């Protein structure tokens, strides 16, 4: 019997959460150490899964299937393919660095890490799930901890509002998809929620055309698609640092991935009919997101809107339904995830010391926080799509894909690159260089070892992927290959 590695990955955070809840409230260090141990384990296992994935064989690997409810065809069916393996790895990375960044959290760390890990389990579950029911199960598990994490530990000014808005938006999106999914379940006549079987279900084009929007856009809400992106900037800003890292870095990918997995892969004809709409909305995301980011005065809002813009690129890649476009989208999910985790970590470090995120009030942070500045610059370059870093490796194929379908859209979308460059450079200059306002003199302490490890780790990933695309592209390609076969070799 093969070692059930995926189940271990999925349930380790949950088990760790239970364990953490049993530790006494006052023993904060024990809580942190336990959390780090669990996160490290998850990271190591996800690395192992990623690198042992057999690209030549392709398809779904590390498959486990346990009958959960045979009567309705529900099973705990786990497996990864080339598209989800990088995302599992991403979750491991963000979880690990998130724990490191949250080391200094002093207000009820026990509950914080417990909820964070429940969230992590949900996320792992969605990425690894090959059963539609279980996908929803894990998806919903990922929703409610967000509420608590933001409402309790978030930024005092907007946390309640942002948390409620986020939770309701996500819940609405997920239940809309649920209805679509149930419709699929009944229509297929197969009496199973097994996605592998449903992939072959051959729904009628009319059915697909009707139900695709439900499923795709329901999940895409979590991916931040315009006009349902509204929860994202507020949510990002209100959340505490590690939660923002998770939120932008992983959660939004959850939405995009589920939209891909359930929407495009199970209803390919529907995808083809509606791709124009996705493309249009994604274009708005990309351009509008970039422009709005430029006028923000709050450091974190800049990053928040930048996320909206970059997720637009992911959706755009999906909408092309071409090999390169989909490859780029898969890569962008990973690259942006790491990049945005880095951004939020850096922002958090600045905020914790300066106690303000107002850009006009900041300045000269490079002196006391040189590593943060360098890390942020690298992140910024990734965001601009600078060649040599992972952002270019991801964005370039997406643009190639757009060219194949609608060149004009590619040209319009390219505007965002310049705008992104402009706001990133401006923010870097205003926050890190220039003169430090007098009130911060001597109050900006250095970052901790944990912070440094996290930042360096994230930078190394982005640089490595940028220089050696072969580290991830072949994986994504196998996944895309499968996708294309479902689309009818388009």
């Amino acid at each position, binding site marked *: 019997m093969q070692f059930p590695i995926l189940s271990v990955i999925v349930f380790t955070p949950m088990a760790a959460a239970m364990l953490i809840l049993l530790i006494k409230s006052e023993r904060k260090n024990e809580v942190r150490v336990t959390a780090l141990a669990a996160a490290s384990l998850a990271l190591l296992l996800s690395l192992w899964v990623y690198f042992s994935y057999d690209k030549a064989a392709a398809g779904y690997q590390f498959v486990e299937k346990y009958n959960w409810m045979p009567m309705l065809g529900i099973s705990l069916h786990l497996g990864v393919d080339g598209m989800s393996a990088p995302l599992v790895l991403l979750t491991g990375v963000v979880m690990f660095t998130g724990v490191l960044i949250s080391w200094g959290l002093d207000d009820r760390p026990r509950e914080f890490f417990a909820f964070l890990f429940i969230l992590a389990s949900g996320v792992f579950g969605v990425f690894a799930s090959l059963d539609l029911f279980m996908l929803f199960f894990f998806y919903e598990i990922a929703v409610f901890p967000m509420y608590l994490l933001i409402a309790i530990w978030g930024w005092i000014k907007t946390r309640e509002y942002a948390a*409620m808005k986020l939770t309701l938006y996500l819940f609405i999106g997920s239940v809309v998809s649920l209805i679509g999914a*149930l419709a699929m379940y*009944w229509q297929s006549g197969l009496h199973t929620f097994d996605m592998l079987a449903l992939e072959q279900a051959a729904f009628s084009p009319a059915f697909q055309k009707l139900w695709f929007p439900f499923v795709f856009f329901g999940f895409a809400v979590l991916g931040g698609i315009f006009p349902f992106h509204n929860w994202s900037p507020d949510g990002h800003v209100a959340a505490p640092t590690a939660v923002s890292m998770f939120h932008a870095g992983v959660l939004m990918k959850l939405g995009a991935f589920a939209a891909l997995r359930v929407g495009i892969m199970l209803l390919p004809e529907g995808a083809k009919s509606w791709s124009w709409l996705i493309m249009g909305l994604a274009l708005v995301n990309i351009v509008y997101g970039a422009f709005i980011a430029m006028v923000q005065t709050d450091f974190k809002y800049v990053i928040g809107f930048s996320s909206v813009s970059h997720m637009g690129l992911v959706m755009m890649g999906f909408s092309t339904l071409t090999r390169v476009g989909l490859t780029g989208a898969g890569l962008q999910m990973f690259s942006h995830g790491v990049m945005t985790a880095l951004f939020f970590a850096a922002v958090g470090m600045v905020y914790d010391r300066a106690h303000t995120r107002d850009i006009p009030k900041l300045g000269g942070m490079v002196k006391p926080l040189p590593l943060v500045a360098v890390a942020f610059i690298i992140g910024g370059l990734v965001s601009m799509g600078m060649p040599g870093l992972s952002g270019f490796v991801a964005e370039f194929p997406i643009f190639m894909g757009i060219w194949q379908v609608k060149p004009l859209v590619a040209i319009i979308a390219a505007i965002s690159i310049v705008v992104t460059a402009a706001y990133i450079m401006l923010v870097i200059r205003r926050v890190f260089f220039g003169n430090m306002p007098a009130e911060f003199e001597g109050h900006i302490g250095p970052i901790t070892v944990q912070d440094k490890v996290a930042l360096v780790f994230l930078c190394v990933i982005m640089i490595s992927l940028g220089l050696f695309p072969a580290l991830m592209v072949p994986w994504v390609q196998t996944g895309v290959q499968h996708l294309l076969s479902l689309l009818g070799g388009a």
Partner: protein
Amino acid sequence: MTIILPILPEILLLALGILVLVLDPFWKDENRRLNLGWLTAGGLFLILAVSLAVARPGAEPALVFGGMLRDDWLGFIFKMFFLFGAAITALFMMDVEGVGRRAESYFLLLAATLGMNLMASAADLVMLYLAIETTSIPLYILAGFLTGDEKSTESGFKYMLFGALTSAVLLYGFSLLYGFSGETSLYALAASFPTLSLLALGIIFLVLVGLSFKVSLFPFHFWAPDVYEGAPTPVAGFLSTASKAAGFAVVLRLFMAVFPSLAANWSVILAVLASLTMTVGNLIALAQKNVKRMLAYSSIAHAGYAMIGVVAFSQLGAASTVFYLIAYILTNLAAFGIVTAFGRVAGSDDMKAYYGLSRRAPTLALMMLVAFLSLAGMPPFGGFVGKVFVFAAAIQQGWIWLAVVGVLNSIIGLYYYLTVLKYVYLYRMEGEEEEKYPIQLSRPYAIALTILTIGIILVGVVFAPWFNLASGAAMNLF
């Protein structure tokens, strides 16, 4: 022997009740009185175990006692859950002032449970009516048990009046049924039920009035908030769960087994009523500032969700309703139990009193989290699975709009459940000295809540066995 087995639970209930009454004078001492509660709860668990061991129905349902009762899985499963609910309620009742140390309250509880058991397995109109009354009357008294409390008296009185009225209407409906078919046995009735006509619809309407009261379906839900608020909290919990479930058992039996020929008509009516129930319940719950009232309205809404399964007139529909009720019984009992436990110490049911609960009693707060999220329909709790199945049943039968309404209502529900959790976890008490005001849980509460919490998670995660049970119950309907 075989003749007793089908009604073994009821016989044992009766015996337990008599035992409680008999032992009462011997345990005059205040402290000893608590043992009555332990006796009731323990006894109920024992009955539960024994019934599960020996009194399971056979493969084929059979009419027993001259056709009065039907020994089938539907009835059996409901009975087991009534016993369970009563046991938990007994545990909750133990520490309530004015209720926990009175033997009468336990006896009334047992009597009501007996009535519910009969309701679940009734196969004859007369039996059905008797069972309904046997259930209701003790509950009227229990609701108004705290004679010194105005609200309690009002609650009991209101409950009785409303109940009496609707039960009269129900009886009239039953009499018409008998009049036009000449049968009192439910299953024989099914055969000779008049086809679509004003009369048939009229009968259904009358029956519906009576049953809607029991399950608090719009527009006969008005009594619920006041009654729940006034009654002693464990009683409210029992009312909102077991009593409602009993009503559903009757609804299932009647509508699916007796009135199937008119399914096309009554399903529409029920669908509309269910939507209205859910919507009204959720919308008004939004505005509540008192936790008990909020839970009351939320319970009304949940009746709506469960009804969706009935509307989806199918095996899956029935099974999903039963499953939903199982999850709901566990969840709502937990919710009311937590409110009781808290109310005892804090002395208030106002939402403001819950500020900072997570710091005063972290474990209790966690249980509240579990219960409320289950009510909202979040995994990995039972409420999620229940809702998914109910919506699945609806979609299977083409009731897409109903599923959409259900979904939209879930969203509203999520909002107010999260708001309460927000008060518990985020807000602080005045003065922020939560450590000075811990909430202690007494032994019965700790036990009961632990069982319930584990149950909610269990039903939410390992739901196959429970659903199999529910399916088994559903199959026996037809």
